[in-house]
């Protein structure tokens, strides 16, 4: 192999040609195409209310996908999250009499205990995560049904839950918040652009991120403001991105998934980090459970059924490798949006709802196929 001189490297990085760009951003482009198609399918699609609704619908899957991406990065999987959403919803419903804070703490504690249980069998007894969490999928569901006697538990009238599930930050405050976010993104994006001497790639990502913020700002501000639930979702996503890109914990997740043995021999405490990641995933599932319950106003013990598969799908569509070592939260969010928008279009187009499953399946396969082809070309 010949070594590229620094000079050659310079031209390579700034001269990313159009085809390479298309390859690298194929899922983002797919999302954009889907967005344009959606406009043709129904003029209702770009209405502020619909766009607001889409983000509300995506929130639960998006939160689960953050945890799922982290788990999959280590080469594992967490199939229990859907049932945990159901169980934690029931726990919230059943403990609501003790007050908001105790109920939420009890719900989060449920998530922590489940995560520790998973981690115990995975990291201490070396049982494959697939098996341990498959077991948890049934165990958590069983507890949800047992505790609720199989019936939905409705939430009593409570200002906090109502606001969290269905409330909006006032339009004025939303405008301030979104303005600040736009400024922040513009600032960070401009710095990144300057660092990469304004190459095509950096300019495109700068324009795209501002366009995305602009679109949703418009939607929220011309409707009722930013939903509280979306705020929670956004905070979790930003936290997830921060963990993976800025912390040692995030780096260790990539290292463990890439080569657990090398990571261990480099002093990485593999077991401890696995415990952390499975607890994270279950706690995020508990938060998703709280959000879903407050949004609907009642906890269905069957709630969250198959949500784990949507979370895996979002991660995988977003380029996360099931073998571990590769993947980003940003990618998983694009995946979650693709799934969410697809569902929305199919509903708007009055397609038989059962087709949603078929389309989702086809998209997952197509996304991975595309991803593999891109990697081969590299």
């Amino acid at each position, binding site marked *: *192999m*010949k*070594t590229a001189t620094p000079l050659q490297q310079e031209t390579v990085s700034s001269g990313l040609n159009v085809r390479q760009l298309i390859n690298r951003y194929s899922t983002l482009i797919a999302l954009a195409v889907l967005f344009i198609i959606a406009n043709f399918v129904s003029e209702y699609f770009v209405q502020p209310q619909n766009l607001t609704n889409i983000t509300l619908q995506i929130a639960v899957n998006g939160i689960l996908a953050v945890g799922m991406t982290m788990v999959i990065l280590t080469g594992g999987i967490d199939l229990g999250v859907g049932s945990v959403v159901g169980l934690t919803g029931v726990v919230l419903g059943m403990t609501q009499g003790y007050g908001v804070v105790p109920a939420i703490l009890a719900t989060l504690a449920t998530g922590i205990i489940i995560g520790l249980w998973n981690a115990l069998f995975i990291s201490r007894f070396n049982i494959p995560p697939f098996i341990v969490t498959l077991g948890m999928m049934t165990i958590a569901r069983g507890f949800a049904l047992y505790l609720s006697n199989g019936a939905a538990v409705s939430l009593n009238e409570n200002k906090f839950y109502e606001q969290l599930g269905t409330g909006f930050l006032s339009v004025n405050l939303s405008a301030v918040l979104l303005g600040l976010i736009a400024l922040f993104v513009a600032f960070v994006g401009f710095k990144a652009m300057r660092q990469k001497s304004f190459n095509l790639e950096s300019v495109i990502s700068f324009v795209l991120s501002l366009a995305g913020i602009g679109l949703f700002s418009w939607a929220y501000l011309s409707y009722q403001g930013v939903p509280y639930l979306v705020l929670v979702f956004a905070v979790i996503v930003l936290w997830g991105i921060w963990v993976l890109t800025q912390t040692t914990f995030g780096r260790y997740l*990539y290292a463990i998934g890439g*080569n657990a*043995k090398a990571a261990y021999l*480099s002093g*990485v405490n593999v077991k401890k980090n696995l415990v952390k990641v499975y607890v994270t995933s279950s706690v995020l599932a508990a938060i998703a459970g709280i959000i879903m319950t407050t949004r609907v106003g009642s906890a269905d013990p069957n709630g969250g059924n198959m949500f784990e598969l949507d979370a895996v799908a979002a991660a995988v569509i977003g380029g996360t490798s099931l073998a571990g*070592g590769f993947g980003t939260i940003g990618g998983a969010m694009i995946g979650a949006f693709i799934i969410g928008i697809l569902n929305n279009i199919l509903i708007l187009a009055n397609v038989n709802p059962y087709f949603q499953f078929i389309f989702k399946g086809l998209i997952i396969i197509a996304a991975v196929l595309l991803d593999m082809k891109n990697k081969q070309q590299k």
Partner: protein
Amino acid sequence: MIKLEMKGILKEFPGVRALNNVTFTAERGEVLALLGENGAGKSTLMKILSGVYAHGTYEGEILVDGQVCKFANTREAEHAGIAIIHQELNLIPGLSIAENVFLGREPKTKFGTIDWKRVHRETQELLVRLHLPFRPTDLVSALSVGQQQMIEIAKAISIKAEILVLDEPTSALTESEVEKLFAIIRELKAQNVTMIYISHKMDEIEAICDRITVLRDGSSVGSALIGDVTRNELITMMVGRDISQMFPKVEQEPGAVLLSLQNYSVKKSQGNGYLLQDINLQVRAGEVVGLAGLMGAGRTELVMSLFGALGLKSEGSVQVSGRTVHIQAPSDAIREGLALVTEDRKESGLVLSMNVRENTSLVSLQSLSSRLGKLDHKREQALAQRYINELRTKTPSAEANVNNLSGGNQQKVVLAKWLANNPKVLILDEPTRGIDVGAKVEIYQLINQLTAAGCAVIMISSELPEVLGMSDRILVMAEGRIAGELPRAQATQESIMKLATKGA
């Protein structure tokens, strides 16, 4: 008579020309050594020959027996009688020997089921012919790497290969296995099989090859009969410059004892026997202690156990800088100032999915981040760049994936990872395995720099010239014990081998 001819081969990867107009011939029944530094293009050339890179993805032509061949895949190359035994073995561990030998070309009965009788009979014949004491039904996973390699050769023989490529075949073999391999090569040669032998080990090449062809930077540099060139001439051909001194050993005045083991023993995970028994050793600052011995003598087990990576309880005491330590995991060892470059960099040294920067910082990540675990990216980048410069790692940038680097440069990244943590005791397990001559010398020079800076080095190596060339003292291991110690002045290949085979 010319058996194989490759003419004007040109192969490009994105951004790199791997082969530039390479021409290459091999006679019938000849053992041809293909030499070159890592990254010179040997593997690429052999992948073209064996159909891994299909016809059309490269320029130039391949002639076998004067016939132009256009292989679309490896199967077509096999049909033309070309078999390749890769450095990384291609056997399926969960299948039996017989199943592996006949994989993909199982003979059928008239009912269309697999003719197991024939499979087992023919495999048995092959095993007998190669003097291998296995049954066809034995699982491949139960064999050592060396034994698995013999099975690969059996497979090649069974497809009646007329051209056999051996890529670094001895890198994981014991002395006696190498002898066995050479006997088989001679036997195949007598049957007019043409062999292309890729290796970095000059002794082996002189022992078994007839002719040498050298590649450098993707071009053919030249070809010569074994007796016609000296070793130094060959190295100059490969590296393109004169390496006057292969082992640039600089002796240091030894300082304080940095690592000391007393009656260190480790029981086997099963049964009552000892994996390691009564090991006593001391390493001083500025010293290189060579650890020699045959495969399975317990050298790797010793350093792995010392590093807390073996998962077995140890007896006796370990002292680092005069203080007794209890190391139960690699993280403990690292805290005590030990560093371990493992023998297999791809399997346990590098995280191949990460880039040079991320691999370099892996051990010292905590010191590059705040107490809450927030990474300092600027310091991390500076660290990676510093070691790229200091070790002269050839990489497009710190952000390049380590998977794309050559073996020598990958090893430099592993070394950088450990040096970044300023170790007191650096343990090197086969530090130059599969690395080209130029990079080897650079690693030796690095060892000199480290000992000059007061580092203690333990070096395991199966290459005796390396052990002799670089060690201040040599400890020879046999059957889990220290069989003896030789000071630099008294050590010879013979004295080491005598100790290594003691009691065996």
